């Protein structure tokens, strides 16, 4: 493979990341060979048909079973700051990489400091509650108690939406190991949250924070991603999931429910301007911790090349 496939044409500088708010959300790829041809990210079929995918214009690419990706393609995705996630059936996450960690440590240190300070962490959790439900959290509650109150409110919202769209609903129930085991509304919800989690992960990484350091959620590789996704879940993907489940129940669906949910979620992301709101929301949540941002370390080297950071703070520009 020649050097040109690494993303740079002779005479053209390598492509840089663009801000998340300017991108489309996610695309799911199955049964294709992903490679780089002439510097572009392409899916190649067995018969030689090529489809160029505008990788830098997406927040993330979800690779489904049957997708194969080359070294050059992963390198190009990393260079343009696009998250690559390997997913199983229905978009259940298996592994993800392509854009790991942040470009600098100051945001990670700030996030860790807030998470380790009990009072600051509670302030962040209360802020997330207020953003989520549009009212302040009840006074003098611990994080565990707030988690319980949120759970009840979410269950009530699910029941209300199910009733509104005429969906038979018992409870949230899913098995990541057995996709077919869930009923249609639960599968719709799983597909919808998988989209939102993929997008939130891309946003958390692009903003320069660690997915594992959560505040309400903790102890999972994507704790902070779940925290951020929950801020938007009830007003973006959950209504779409129940709407599609309602259409499926009436037999008015021309495609599989999870695919219909994904398409509906993507349009909802654009309609609600989610990609533009999600990184400011992350900053707003963390600012509620009321801890000062760390100063850049004194030994930090000055920028070697002027020209500014491209993309978001977490992108390696």
């Amino acid at each position, binding site marked *: 493979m020649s050097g040109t496939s690494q993303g740079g044409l002779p005479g053209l500088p390598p492509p840089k990341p663009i801000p998340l708010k300017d991108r*489309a959300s996610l695309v799911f790829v199955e049964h294709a060979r992903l490679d780089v041809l002439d510097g572009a990210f392409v899916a190649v079929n067995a018969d030689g048909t090529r489809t*160029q995918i505008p990788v830098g214009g997406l927040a993330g690419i979800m690779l489904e079973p049957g997708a194969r990706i080359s070294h050059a393609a992963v390198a190009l995705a990393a260079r343009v700051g696009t998250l690559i996630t390997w997913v199983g059936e229905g978009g259940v996450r298996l592994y993800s990489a392509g854009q790991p960690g942040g470009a600098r440590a100051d945001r990670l240190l700030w996030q860790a400091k807030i998470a380790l300070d009990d009072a600051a962490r509670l302030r962040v959790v209360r802020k997330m509650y207020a953003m989520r439900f549009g009212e302040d959290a009840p006074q003098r509650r611990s994080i565990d108690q707030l988690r319980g109150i949120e759970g009840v409110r979410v269950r009530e919202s699910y029941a209300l939406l199910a009733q509104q769209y005429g969906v038979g609903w018992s409870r949230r129930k899913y098995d990541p190991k057995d996709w077919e085991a869930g009923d249609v509304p639960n599968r719709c919800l799983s597909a919808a949250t998988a989209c939102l989690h993929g997008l939130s992960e891309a946003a958390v990484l692009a903003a320069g924070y660690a997915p594992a350091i959560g505040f309400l959620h903790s102890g999972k590789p994507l704790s902070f991603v779940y925290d951020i996704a929950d801020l938007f879940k009830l007003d973006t993907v959950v209504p779409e999931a129940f709407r599609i489940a309602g259409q499926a129940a009436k037999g008015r669906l021309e495609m599989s429910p999870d695919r219909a949910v994904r398409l509906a979620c*993507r349009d909802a992301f654009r309609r609600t301007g989610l990609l533009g709101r999600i990184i400011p929301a992350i900053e707003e949540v963390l600012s509620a911790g009321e801890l000062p941002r760390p100063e850049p370390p004194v030994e930090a080297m000055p920028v070697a090349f002027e020209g500014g950071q491209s993309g978001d703070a977490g992108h390696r520009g």
Partner: protein
Amino acid sequence: MMVVVVSNAPPRLRGRLAAWLVELRAGVYVGDYSARTREMIWNQVLAGIETGDAVMVWKVPTDQGYEFLTAGRNRRMPVDFDGLKLVNFLPETPC
């Protein structure tokens, strides 16, 4: 905002398109019209394209932000890629 690109189109159609759109480069027309006018222009393209081929692209409020239609055969054909409308580039085939 809408863009129409034609190749191998008869001069009659190219003149007709230039009645509403500006020809920025050979066969590339742009304008900004309502959905109804856009459909009328596309119907003119379909009626006049003969053996050529054409594509029309315009802005819509979906995730991708734009939508397009094609007419006639070209090595580049539209394909639905998980709801993202992309383009298949077909290998050269002996006719």
